[in-house]
């Protein structure tokens, strides 16, 4: 399900991950859960999509990562937005809103 939606909206996954990390650092599963939460369960990100996206975005310089302990004391890798990541989030948010408005207009047209 999530895979299909990701395919449907190229770039949506990046935006959702950036958004989910806007409030603070999270580990992989945390990101998945936060995306689920903020989209009210519409998007379920599977690890097969999540991990490639995280690594890709880290290599692009939008995220950094560090090892730390989880709430139940598991060693896990935590991801955090960089300054470039915040700029990217702003840019993509603006872009997304623009598209959403445009699509909205398009769908209202008769």
């Amino acid at each position, binding site marked *: 399900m999530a895979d299909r939606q990701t395919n449907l909206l190229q770039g949506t996954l990046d935006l959702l991950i950036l958004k989910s990390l806007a409030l603070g650092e999270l*580990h*992989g*599963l945390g990101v998945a859960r936060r995306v689920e939460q903020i989209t009210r369960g519409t998007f379920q990100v*599977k*690890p*097969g999509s999540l*991990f*490639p996206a995280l*690594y*890709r975005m*880290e*290599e*692009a*310089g939008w995220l950094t990562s560090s090892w730390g302990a*989880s709430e*139940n004391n*598991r*060693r*896990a*890798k935590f991801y955090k937005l960089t300054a*470039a990541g915040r700029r*990217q989030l702003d*840019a*993509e948010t603006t872009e997304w809103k623009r598209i959403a408005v445009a699509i909205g207009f398009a769908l209202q047209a008769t």
Partner: protein
Amino acid sequence: MSPFTQIPSRLRSALRNLFTRSRVERELDADVRAYADLLADEKVGAGMDHSAARRAALVELGGIERVKDEVREVRTGALLETTARDIRYAIRTLARRPGFTIVAVIALALGIGATSAIFSVVNGVLLRPLPYRDPDGLVVILHEGRNPVAPANYLDWKRQTSMFSAFGAAEYWSGTVTGDITERVHGLKVTSDVLSMTGVSPLLGRSFRAGDDVGTGDQPIILSWGYWQRRFAGRRDVLGTSLIVSGSSYTVVGVMPRGFDFPMFWAGNAEVWTPLALGERETSRQSQSLRLFARLRPGTSLQAAQAQMSAIAANLERAFPGTNPAVTVTPLSTMVVGDVRTALLVLLGAVGFVLLIACANVAHMLLARASARHREMTVRLALGASRARLLRQLLTESVVLALAGGALGITLARLGLRTLVALAGASLPRADAIGLDFKVLVVTTVISLLTGLGFGLLPALRVSRSEMSEALRDGARGSTDGAGRSRIRSVLVASETALALVLLAGAGLAIRSFAALRAIDPGFDPRGVLSAVISLYGTAEAPPGRREAFYTSTLERVRRLPGVESASLINHLPVAGDIWGLHFLIEGRPRPRPADVPRATFRVVYPGYFATMRLPLLRGRDVAETDRGNAPRVVVVNDFLARRYWPNEDAVGKRVAFDPSAAEPTWFTVVGVVKNDVQSDWSAPPDAEVFLPYRQEQSYLESDGGHVGFMTLVVRASCSDARACNPASLAPAIRDVIGSLDRSVPVTDVVTMEDVITGATARPRFTLVLLATFAAVALVLAAVGIYGVISYAVSRRTHEIGVRVALGASPGAVVRLIVAQGMRVVTVGVAIGLVGALIASRLMTQLVYGVRVTDPTTYAGVAALLGAVALVASYIPARRATRIDPLVAMRTD
């Protein structure tokens, strides 16, 4: 979203990914495992028991390895990294099966090496531009594409044409250089713009300029690099040195750079250039001795130039009938490359076929191996490797194989090229431009890569598409081969057979054609004859009163040498020498119009020439010792002339004259008729020829020109067995004899008549040897392919054959079963190949002599040969099948 701001970060990642790979991998592993652990914890928190939660987490994750693989795919430098990994893996896999790898690499090296070698030749001869400035603008102007032009025509054409920015003439000449060493030198007399037209500047000194061609007094001369090195040891102060050539004085004004060769298609042995002074010949429309070179004006098309030249010649022909046959304007490059183009393109096609066959061979070797690797692939698929990933890895393996083949192929090509150029000899123009240059290396690499993809794609596609269930079934039971794969292998073998047949047909035609060429009766018997050119021009023996005496005493002494059976002299040696034409009249017949005056090749001989060459006298007599001075003038004609002009009568006793325009012709009586001989072009049909006695030939006895200043000595060695005869061993004794008469007389071009003929058939031999080699390689590869397929089939059918034998099948029946399977495929291949060969044969039309390109015998022969080889190739594995022990066979698996 600007991708540029990501560059530093990407670069860091790429370096990290490539150089600290193990750490990056460890972190990735820990990251994904942590996810699984956290997920399991979540499920335990939701009330699952520990192990069930763990299993559920792993299922949800979809496999740790798979996730890691997907991350690897997106990582910067991933392509580079996986490729490097694939290459390492491929090398390990190939090294584990050295037998397979060696055979495959050798097959590919043969294909790629041969292709590279032939491509090098094509590149050097056909593709590389001629080494002149703007070579495309240079043209050659001749009569009928090959005949030289008379001086008056040259001057008229030059005055009237407007199409050329330069227009010059060249004439071949040779002379005797005297001084410390007396030697014969060949050269060109050129108008001042010929050398400058090439755009090649002299290494030393200057080129010719207007006013150099006065033709009197001290004349300028330009040396080739080779002659400068040989005669002057490369001395820088050679400019201004005087050189005496054939009694005239020349001053060295320039030296051309090393390797300078112009015009390449003619006068290849020219080593010096002097100005062409036409003098009183300016008005002559008879002596056709000039070859014209011109440069097209920028923007002028060849067609426009040709049209204008044809119009000019047509006008002149009206004014002077019989003097202006068709004029041709031909690009210099076409003249240089000539008819070798077709031969090279056919060879390139042939070698491409060899490469295709090698590819097909390796492809079915890979297919056979693919079945063995079925389980490996299935396991990897089950572990979550993507099919694209497997495909890429398999293709990497075949490309590695092909590149190894390419590397070995280049080495083979280097060795092959040397042999090839030596084999081609003078029959290949621009041989010095042939080599493995950068372009050839690039082409070879590309060919190797394409080859790897070509033969690897099919097996790789099949393997990566393997179905797990199929693999399990096939792996579990040694069943008969899957229908699909067996069909592909049959198609490969059939294609190989078809390609091999096309090559064999080509080689067969070349062999038959060469046999026909070798079977041409030159008229004379070349075995045991040695020839040598004696040049008196410019020596103390040259004056009219002395030359005849010198030749006579030379002959007397040579004839007395031990091991000499007979000796004589002729002006121009058949096959190798020049051919001059002479117009003649026949007594008692009406005078023909100027354009219809019959023409014959003109030879001047001493008595004994026909006997020495064993050119049979059909009627009448040889020229005699008494045919001299004021004795009645005589001539010997060839059979062609006799039959053509006296079809129903005896030519002997008839009279002809060689001064058709004279009011009172001088009549010559025909005293003999000899068999037709090959005059110049080895496979040309016979043509009219006359032989005049030297001692009655005024031009040779009295003229001062260099063109009549030499004769060719022919000597027949006395051998009991003509086959074991070695006339070349007579050369030192002959040189001694002539040296003892006059040390300053140069003896050159010492060559056996057999070598002359070998040289005349060098190009067809070159084509033949290469085509035959390629066909042989193709045959071997096809045989290996058929053998491989049948033995594979036998190994797959062990169980079935075991059952058959157990049920009472005789060994004969088993052999028939297996062989029939092979021969069915081969028959289809042969049938397709025959059609292909018939279509391809049209390309051979220009290359064959004395055999039709659709010759049924040749086609039947090569089909039978291929069939026989295929039979043997399938019989060997079939016999192995008969030795299968049914008990063991049924227990296998």
